[in-house]
């Protein structure tokens, strides 16, 4: 790390350094692209994990987290834009492909325009939306943005801001779909999009030429809402992001707050959280597998998968009282003591699961039609996985051996024995199989813990009124879909100044176009199903 600081300081004397959780760089906008290039090419920080728009009150800007895909080191970069009226920043889309949609998100919410991003359109909000909602001075007057029942116009062109040789910035028009393209509108209400995702798809016969992604059909503004709530109140939102990773998401937020408060979580709570996380992962993968098979036409598999899922939900329900939105993790530990028959129920589940997995493989995985539909479809290379920031089972099956549980260990995962499931094919079959193997690994983790739940407190003593010190924290966990991150910036009050949920599904949705080009329409369903994105998690 010291090495990076020295070299960068030599190359770019304007860059300021600080040491927080990670090495922190404060880069002026003019040098941002060059610094990013140096970090990527010289130090291997080739994965843009998060690009977070910020409004510090006086000034706007972005905070980036870059990860070295080999050594898993992480650094933070802060870039501030000039002024609030018409802020511009340089784009890093050419270095990190995923920056393309991250920057569109920031443009949508903060109004920062990125020079060199080939597509500066709204991503989440309507074209005719007034104002930038995440700015602190956003006018919430409902008459400005009433509920409109007219349909927004679909645009076939976009703009790019280009910096001329003289430093002047001008707009250039870019074509998304040419008039002769046969564009099929898939979504937002479509059975295969797993929620309200809209994909405008240009097809040539049955072959896909291009996909244009429209988000925001379930954008609920959770991050903005959090800014008006106290820390304990924000936790319930995490259950409603990726509702199939509810416990893992809230685990992430709680850990982030605990890190800021420097609270030690009792060991019993740690173990419970870990078991719950893995049960949740089973739940998530089961549903992902089931709905994917249904999309492929094998409806019966959905019902087989849901049969086991109900058993898991029963276990949750006995302890937490809910089937989907649990509110189980609280700051400092967990909310309730385990149900009396928790241990025996989980053991029963562990007995069922291997048989069930065998059955799934018999019914579906070994089927010749299923093989033909999945093998070689939507091949993701490890380089593309890093560039598009595809984490989780999808990234690992492409050959990028990244699992937050190993890369940035948290909780009691370092003590546990499990394999990070990695394959090299990168096609839909690999993604599908990776999920099944991960279910086996989850069972293995649970089996290690279930007999060794220590006695003790389930929740640490935390102050009645929770105030975080001034500062910023970033915490990641591995959910069923990938690396879920939580970023908190605090000014020392009871509510966050900015809270950002960095969702894995957002990046998964961003890679759909790349994977689908040249494939058939039916493969879009295969690819979407094996990527397994949850739309409310994309939109937040």
């Amino acid at each position: 790390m010291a090495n990076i600081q020295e070299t960068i300081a030599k190359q770019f004397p304007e860059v300021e350094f600080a040491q927080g959780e990670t090495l922190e760089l404060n880069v002026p906008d003019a040098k941002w692209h060059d610094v990013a290039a140096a970090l990527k090419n010289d130090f291997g920080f080739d994965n843009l994990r998060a690009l977070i728009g910020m409004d510090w009150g006086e000034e706007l800007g972005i905070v980036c987290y870059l990860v070295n895909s080999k050594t898993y080191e992480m650094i933070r970069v802060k870039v501030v834009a000039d002024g609030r009226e018409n802020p511009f920043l340089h784009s890093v889309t050419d270095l990190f492909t995923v920056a393309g949609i991250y920057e569109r998100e920031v443009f949508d919410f903060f109004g920062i325009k990125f020079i060199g991003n080939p597509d500066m359109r709204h991503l989440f909000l309507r074209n005719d939306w007034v104002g930038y909602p995440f700015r602190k001075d956003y006018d919430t007057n409902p008459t400005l943005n009433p509920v409109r029942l007219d349909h927004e116009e679909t645009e076939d062109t976009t703009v790019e801001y280009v910096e001329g040789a003289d430093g002047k910035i001008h707009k250039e028009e870019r074509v998304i779909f040419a008039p002769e393209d046969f564009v099929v509108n898939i979504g937002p209400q479509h059975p295969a999009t797993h929620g309200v995702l809209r994909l405008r798809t240009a097809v040539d016969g049955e072959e896909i030429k291009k996909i244009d992604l429209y988000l925001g059909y379930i954008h609920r503004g959770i991050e903005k809402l959090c800014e008006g709530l106290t820390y304990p109140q924000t936790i319930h939102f995490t259950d409603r992001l990726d509702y199939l990773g509810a416990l893992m998401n809230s685990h992430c937020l709680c850990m982030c707050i605990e890190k800021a408060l420097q609270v030690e979580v009792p060991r019993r709570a740690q173990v419970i959280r870990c078991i719950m996380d893995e049960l949740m992962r089973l739940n998530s993968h089961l549903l992902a597998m089931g709905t994917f098979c249904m999309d492929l036409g094998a409806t019966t598999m959905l019902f087989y998968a849901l049969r086991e899922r109900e058993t898991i939900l029963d276990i949750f329900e006995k302890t937490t009282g809910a089937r989907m939105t649990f509110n189980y993790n609280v700051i400092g530990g967990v909310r309730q003591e385990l149900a009396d028959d928790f241990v025996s129920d989980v053991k029963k589940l562990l007995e069922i699961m291997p048989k069930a997995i065998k059955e799934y493989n018999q019914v579906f995985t070994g089927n010749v039609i299923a093989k033909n539909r999945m093998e070689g479809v939507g091949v993701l290379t490890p380089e593309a996985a890093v560039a598009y920031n595809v984490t989780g089972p999808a990234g690992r099956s492409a050959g990028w051996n990244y699992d937050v549980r190993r890369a940035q260990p948290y909780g009691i995962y370092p003590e546990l024995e499990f394999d990070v499931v990695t394959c090299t094919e990168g096609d839909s079959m690999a993604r599908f199989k990776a999920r099944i193997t991960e279910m086996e690994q989850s069972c293995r983790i649970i089996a290690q813990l279930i007999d060794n739940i220590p006695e003790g407190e389930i929740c640490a003593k935390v102050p009645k009124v929770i105030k975080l010190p001034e500062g910023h924290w970033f915490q990641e966990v591995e959910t069923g879909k990938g690396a879920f991150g939580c970023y908190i910036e605090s000014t020392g009050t009871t509510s966050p100044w900015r809270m950002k949920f960095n969702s894995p599904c957002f990046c998964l949705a961003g890679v759909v176009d790349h994977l689908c080009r040249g494939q058939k329409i039916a493969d879009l369903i295969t690819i979407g199903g094996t990527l397994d994105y949850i739309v409310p998690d994309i939109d937040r």
Partner: protein
Amino acid sequence: MQDLSFITHWIDNLFRVVLGCPDWLTVTLECVLLGVALLLVYAVLALFYIWFERKVCAAFQCRLGPNRVGPFGVLQPFADMFKMLIKELISLNHVDKFLFALAPFLVIVASMMAFAVLPWGNGLQAVDFNIGIFFLLAVSSIGVLGILLAGWSSNNKFTLIGALRSGAQMVSYEISISLSVITMVVLSGTMSVQGIVHAQDHCWFIFSGHIPAIIAFLVYVIAGTAETNRGPFDLPEAESELTAGYHTEYSGMHFGFFYLAEYLNLFIVGGVAALLFFGGWMPLHIPGWDGFNHVMNYIPSVIWFLGKAVVITFVMIWFKWTFPRLRIDQLLSFEWKYLMPISLVNLVLMTLVVVFGLYI
């Protein structure tokens, strides 16, 4: 074997002799009667299949299936039909109105005409052409026209893709169906439906026709499943890709026609398979077991026919709820690269079998 033609003779006699109707009136009245009877059976069978499929798939999926409306939910499809009959028929603005309205009728008329020539029982058949099976093939291919028109006239991209898929699929698989039918015609030596049944008097073709008959049967069942647009070949209406395929824009009874025709086509494919390979309404006869054959003869021929058709369609429903869907290119290459060459070779094989008298 009891000859059920006494019923038709009795009715004919009633009109001509008892009521003293002239010839033209008798024929007209008989046609009307026959039409009504066929329509009734058609509707009841379609509703039965709707119920049957829902129950069977529920059983595969560890569920119960309809059980609230009537005993075992048997009235469920009737409730569905009543609702569908009075549901709004949405008239759309940007469609070809005439073709849009015509398409569902084409589909249902095609399946009804094919339905009419099935051999229901000994002496129970609307018309016994000398080219019955040929007629059946011909009329059942009108259905694809209805589907193409439905998809095209709806002015919707999903329906258009669905219709084109369906066109490609049905036209291709028609070849395999025809070839396997011809294979069996070679064996039976006649195209008349009753003639084919009678040719299996002593032994069903699936047993007597050696290996070529079994191959033809497998090809026929696969191609027949594809012909009815059912899973794993349900691409034209692939829910997860094309919403509801070619009938996305149809509502109310127009949709009801597609829905009924789908299930009836299932029955027709089952019925034709029963006719060609399992002796139609002919009871199970094993040469030499006279006592057994005699007992079998007591079961009415209608039950034999329906039973065989239902068993074959059950297998096809089983396919649907087990296999995932094929992709369009895989579907077509399966037909053109495997099924069609196999059936061509099979046709030659069968000819050899017949020429050398190798069949039983």
